[in-house]
């Protein structure tokens, strides 16, 4: 049984990361932008697992574990911030949340 070359996974990871950046820049809804960050983290995780497989080392997998934990903490705090912003400004559109904009 032949296996899929690791480079295929790396290309997929790069494409997903690029799409994540595009979503981050294009979207206007603050929640969707937050989801774009999660997409980029996922793409990096895929690269970590692929490299761990290529080198036959477990450290990459442990790093993925830590990335997932940090993403969970980040999304908990981030969504709380989003709720607070919505309570204060009644909008989720980033272009209307411009208090710090000069």
């Amino acid at each position, binding site marked *: *049984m*032949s*296996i*899929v*070359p*690791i*480079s295929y*996974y*790396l*290309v*997929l990871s*790069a*494409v*997903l990361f*690029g*799409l*994540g*950046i*595009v979503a981050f*820049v*294009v*979207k*206007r*809804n603050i*929640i*969707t932008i*937050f*989801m774009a960050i*999660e*997409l980029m983290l*996922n793409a990096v*995780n*895929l690269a970590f*697992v*692929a490299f*761990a*497989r*290529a080198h*036959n080392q*477990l450290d990459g*997998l*442990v790093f*993925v*574990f*830590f990335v*997932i*934990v*940090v*993403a*969970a*903490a980040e*999304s*908990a*705090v981030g*969504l*709380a911030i*989003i*709720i*607070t912003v919505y309570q204060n400004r009644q909008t989720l*559109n980033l272009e209307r949340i411009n208090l710090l904009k000069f």
Partner: protein
Amino acid sequence: MTLPFIMFFVCAALAVIGALTLILAREPIHSALALVLVMVSLAVLYLLLGAEFIAAVQIIVYAGAIMVLFVFVIMLLNAGVEERTDYSKLAKFAGLPLGIFLSLALAYWMLESFIGKQIANGLGGTNASVSTRELSAQLFQKYLFPFEATSILILIAILGALVLAKKDE
């Protein structure tokens, strides 16, 4: 075409379609469901790479906990159709080509780097899956301090979320 190849291409296509739907969907809830699709197909890819534990954590924590939190907040804030604001002219015409270029350039750099070339030359590539026992031994011996640090991080995140989302008196 063997089974792993077919699995890989199906899951890769699903992941890319999900990511595109995330960008193109107007309603945040559709974007969230597309992201769930991406995460599930990535979990299948982790299984294909032999990382069973990571695949399970991906489903349970990412697709389960984090995305439920997102959907919950979307429902709570009643987030409807995204307002279309005026893009800048530059973003309208140059955005998509530049995004595609960014993806391809990133992929090219990854493959042309030193490690990428090593991998292309067939470094590694065993079929055996990583046992969860080895992974946990690594986690609780070599990475014990970072592991304990993450527990404090989670505690702080819980406190922070509670303080932020609490109604002001």
